[in-house]
């Protein structure tokens, strides 16, 4: 499979993949690494890293920051993945319909997408989460609602170019039904940009989730990185470690996802290499 070979030629992507696997492993092994719940008050408050057996120190309530980061990985990855899948679903569906049917439908869908992109998406996300009370589902829904427009635009462009391709016309001439054409001819060829987009979107979904919980709109029952940094914000003078380490965790995961995204984009469509991946 020369896909793997092309992917590995991209050093950044390999590093990204390794970091990603580490983070996922940390999330899965959290109960083994840190038995008990991350919310337990395991030590004295504001313990600097290294003291009292705490690897990364404790927070304002004496909770172990390292445990918080391990369990926080679960929430961040879960929210990132699920919200990306949901927004991909919406984006691909709308993009496909607009791209394939064209004409009035295309105009309507595009006006709707443009309208959505005009609203400052983060402000909208805050509003949605606050209105429907912060919980894991409302966060996922909010992130999905604000991140589908770029997907719709990319998929629409891809479908429009593929629809006019001759092998699609050949399928029409063979008498294939439009749905068959979309599923077996157009979609498989439109997959590679979608896959690249998926990894980049997971990265921005994690950023969005951490920003929301930083502002206190996170799910109160789930330990997440944003929560740790948020609760560390006001005591930054007393306990710098409460904000620094979770921030590094977010940075590493998001960077890894971006690098993997770049690697995927080079491996899946080599001719894109000289143009570099669009942000």
């Amino acid at each position, binding site marked *: 499979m020369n896909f793997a070979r092309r992917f590995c030629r991209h050093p950044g992507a390999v590093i990204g993949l390794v970091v990603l696997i580490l983070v996922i492993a940390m999330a899965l092994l959290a109960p083994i690494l840190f038995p008990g*719940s991350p*919310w*337990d*008050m*395991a*030590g*004295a*408050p*504001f313990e600097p890293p290294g003291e*009292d057996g705490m690897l990364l120190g404790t927070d*304002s*309530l*004496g909770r172990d920051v390292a445990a918080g980061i391990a369990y926080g990985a679960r929430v961040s990855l879960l929210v990132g993945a699920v919200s990306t899948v949901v927004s991909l679903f919406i984006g691909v569906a709308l993009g496909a319909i607009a791209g394939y049917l064209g004409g009035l439908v295309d105009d309507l869908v595009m006006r709707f997408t443009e309208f959505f992109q005009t609203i400052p998406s983060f402000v909208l996300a805050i509003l949605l989460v*606050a209105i429907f*009370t*912060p919980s894991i589902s409302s966060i996922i829904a909010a992130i999905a609602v604000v991140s589908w427009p770029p997907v719709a635009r990319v998929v629409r462009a891809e479908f429009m170019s593929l629809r006019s391709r001759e092998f699609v016309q050949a399928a029409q001439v063979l008498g294939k039904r439009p749905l068959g054409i979309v599923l077996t001819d157009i979609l498989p060829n439109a997959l590679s940009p979608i896959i690249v987009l998926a990894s980049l979107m997971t990265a921005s979904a994690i950023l969005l989730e951490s920003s929301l919980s930083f502002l*206190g709109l996170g799910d*109160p*029952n789930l330990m997440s990185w944003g929560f740790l940094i948020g*609760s560390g914000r*006001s*005591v*930054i*003078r*007393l306990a710098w470690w409460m904000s620094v380490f979770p921030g590094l965790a977010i940075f590493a995961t998001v960077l890894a996802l971006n690098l993997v995204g770049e690697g995927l984009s080079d491996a899946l469509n080599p001719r894109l290499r000289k143009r570099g991946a669009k942000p």
Partner: protein
Amino acid sequence: MHPNPWLLTRRHLLATAGAAPLLLSASAARAQGITPRRGGVLNIILNPEPPLLQIGVNNQTPTLICGTKMTQGLLKFSPTLEPLPELAKSWTISPDGLGYVFSLQDNVKWHDGQPFTADDVIFSVMTFNKEIAPRLRGVLAGIAECTAPDPHTVRFVLKQAFQPFLLCFDATAIPMVAKHVYDGTDFRTNPANSHPIGTGPFRFVEWQRGNFVRMERFPDYWKPGEPYLDGILWRVIPDGQSRRLAVETGQVQMSTATDIEPFDVPALRSAPNLDVTTKGWEYFSPLFWFEPNHRVPLFADKRVRRAMSMALDRNFIVQRLWFGLGKAATGPVSSTTRFYDPNAKLPTLDLAAATNLLDEAGLKPNAQGIRGSFKHLIPPYGEIWNRMGEYFRQAMAKIGFEVTLESTDAGTWASRVANWDYETTSNVLYQYGDPTLGVERSYVTSNIQKILFTNTSGYSNPKVDELFAAARLGATVEARQKAFNEVQELLVEDMPLLWVVEVAYPTITDKHLHNVIQLGTGDHACFDDVFLSA
């Protein structure tokens, strides 16, 4: 709990357990040979920026603290809640406790130069406060008649003896407003609300929204030679960290109530140029509790509530979450409120006893050790409330309860608690110096209403209702004390709410500032004798 005995880091421990902060009252200041210096502008933090400055129309803490420098009451109260003269020079109470006669200070002027007369008092009590202050509506309804024999005397006749009547005349409860400013207007939208006309030592000058409120010395103040300060500048600083830095660097000489986050207080205590005191909240005695909703079957059983109370480590909370700002609660009435019964004690922290009680109540743990689960609604008023919610979940987990936290915004919290749509939540209520004024409302069946700060928990015990009524109408102090003692013992036994902390908000002042905390209402004094030494 971590097995090894942890020690608060060095500085914290010494500060709290060590020397009680020195209290400098006017007399003490003079005794130390510091003669009050005239002049200088006092910078105080105003946080959060109140919607308006007229007490009564709005009763949020910043409005009260800022407003009391301009608007005064007939009386003021000592730390032991003894009434002291303010706009009322003296007062007499008839033997049957029905007649109250106040004689007013002479030559008191409003800031706009108009004279302060008995008509203003009658207007303020019988019209303004009756209409605008829902909390006192019951008390004022008890006034049979109110007359002004002469411009400097006011006579009240009550329908029944009401011993705590005097306590209502503090500026924060019944503010004296000018009849010529408010009479005939819609009190809520009267423009004067944003620039009050009062009788206090300081006069309103200017309010730049989001920036500052400026007051200057009122030259014709009725106390000769006072106030000492030239003016007061109330600075609006939205961010916690900037408020702390403003106090530390001396840009601001005083912070009150919740201006400074509890976790910043220890560091400020050890600052050489600052004084930190938790005195001055005796009148209000804020009490923090966890409130179970009695309509939830789980919490209807007294034993469950007692078990939950026994699982709370109140000393841990006071030291760790409130950083020593307050004392562990012992019952429904704070130790600083009158008629406090010292021997009505809460059951001590005892996890074993708690779990036995739960077994007794028939709540056996299932396979995962869970006896029951419920949701805790966190009031969105700052970090400390989130931390208390998180502590509550961990504490309940130790006795087998699985707690899910719900965080929401101010509007939703207010509407859900008012509509009894919650399982547990937490709250802080003032006691206003007398259990009848501030405590009774949370426990009597008659006050179960769909409104915030009433008996939203739905607790109902006829004996308690009876005792509170007796205490309310008791003619003598001894009669009321007996009734209050009995009701406190009963409530501690019934445990309708899980009282946790008698909160004492910190007042942090620059060492050069004197005579700040002298009254039971602390920062809410009018500051006419406050001065800045060199």
